[in-house]
């Protein structure tokens, strides 16, 4: 397997790789969002690309973390979106969200090229990414999971020898599968959209990816009882909000806001909206 992580990333690499991967150039420069509030009272300069507005890039859709929702102010909904909204509220900022390409986010291009102040896209904090991005404290503990058809005989990662397992390119799930599922035929897809279609079509026999996404498939009302999550894996990793590495004032402000949310129960309220389980 040629999964070798030699992080030697620089800005230009990020720029070029993202270009190559057709970074969706979210062209719109929200010019219309003049805010009622002045620059955050008492706070240090947050170096935002547009004053008074927290511009956030996210690879949408990735439910339940981010999805399109015309009924909301931002036009987006999801766990990440709610977290970002709550942070912005504390910092007295408006929120503008832009749909972006995940590779542009994880490579740092979207931030470096001034498209947004923050990437909130269910992004796991990894040492490789930390070289290019400045992460907030973790706001969600990511777990990986194995989804199989309900009638499958696969019950754990040890049963994957010779089995086609769908993973998403460049994700923690892909790395985890390559390290831990010995003998598995790892099939790499561009996104969960193709992966879910592939397991429904019988082209792969299992999906290994983030737990919430697999849970969504398990609970898919249109395919009730067809798929089940048989195993979850604690990778000891968590999702972080990514910002420009040198924008420490913004990172500090975000961390402070996250801490406040966790203290006053706002975080738990948002968490339960999406992940309240009876497991």
């Amino acid at each position: 397997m040629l999964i070798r992580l030699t992080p030697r990333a620089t800005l230009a690499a990020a720029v070029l790789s993202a270009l190559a991967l057709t970074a969706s150039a979210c062209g719109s420069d929200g010019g219309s969002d003049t805010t009622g509030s002045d620059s955050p009272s008492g706070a240090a300069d947050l170096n935002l690309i547009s004053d008074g507005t927290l511009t956030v890039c996210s690879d949408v859709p990735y439910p339940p973390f981010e999805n399109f929702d015309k009924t909301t102010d931002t036009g987006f909904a999801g766990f990440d979106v709610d977290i970002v909204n709550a942070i912005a509220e504390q910092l007295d900022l408006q929120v503008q969200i832009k749909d972006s390409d995940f590779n542009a986010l994880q490579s740092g291009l979207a931030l470096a090229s001034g498209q947004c102040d923050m990437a909130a896209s269910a992004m796991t904090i990894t040492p490789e990414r930390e070289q290019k991005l400045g992460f907030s404290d973790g706001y969600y503990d990511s777990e990986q999971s194995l989804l199989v058809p309900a009638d499958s005989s696969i019950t754990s990662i040890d049963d994957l020898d010779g089995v086609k397992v769908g993973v998403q390119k460049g994700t923690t799930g892909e790395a985890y599968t390559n390290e831990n599922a010995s003998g598995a035929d790892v099939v790499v897809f561009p996104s969960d959209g193709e992966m879910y279609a592939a397991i429904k079509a019988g082209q792969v026999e299992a999906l290994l990816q983030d737990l919430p996404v697999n849970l969504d498939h398990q609970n898919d009302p249109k395919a009730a009882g067809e798929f089940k999550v048989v195993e979850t894996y604690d990778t000891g990793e968590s999702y972080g909000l990514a910002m420009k590495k040198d924008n420490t004032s913004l990172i500090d402000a975000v961390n402070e806001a996250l801490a406040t949310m966790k203290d006053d129960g706002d975080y738990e309220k948002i968490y339960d909206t999406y992940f309240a389980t009876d497991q």
Partner: protein
Amino acid sequence: MSLKRATKRRLRDGVAYAVLLAVVAIVVVTADRDAISKNFLDGDTWKGLWPDIVLIAAKNTVKYTVIAFAGGIALALVLALMRLSPLRLYRWLATVYIEFFRGLPALVVIIFMALGVPLAFGWTAPGGTIGAGLIALIMVSGAYMAETLRAGIQAVPKGQREAAQSLGMNGFWTMVTVTLPQAVRIVIPPLTNELILLVKDTSLLTFVGMQYDQVELTSFGQQGLVNYSNASPLLAIALVYLVISIPASQLVAFLERRQQRAAR
């Protein structure tokens, strides 16, 4: 006052060369050589790509291209003959097929064949998603090449067919031994063009999922971008694509020259 024509031409050429030189100079000066060598010419990355870039990725690109082209041309031949058939039903079917598949993006057909058809019919193509994707490429390239082939058949002078008939050959025999051999010579350049397009269209197969031993050049390069956090894999696969496609286009040029001579 009036300059000699030769002088004028020399002046004009001089300006053209000066502009070209200026452009080259700007490119050389503005390029960040340090960044380029760090990001595109990273030695460790290049070493890491070798030899899989040739033994797996390039091999698969060529393999997928050959399969799609061979299948496509067989399908195209059937479609072209149907379009020229005296039977209206055949003509109609072929026209509908060609218009349908020329009107769809290859990517849509690939995803539909690999992920949609198994859902709808419970039938999985041999070779999994890649097999299904290749069938889709055959279906699409067949539609394009059918029109080329039909034009080639129609370009064969009518006198050839009439002569064959006057010798007592039947329609099928005339087509196989007289018309088609001449038509194929006419359409070789445009068909080779289609081959070069197919080399690049194989990159679309990445959308339906690939195992490591199935990757073609583009998905190999994309995985490299992620694994090495470095743009070198991109330059590497670009070079390999050129190694494949430039000889192919030279071949087209050669065949074109030869055909022009033969036609005289």
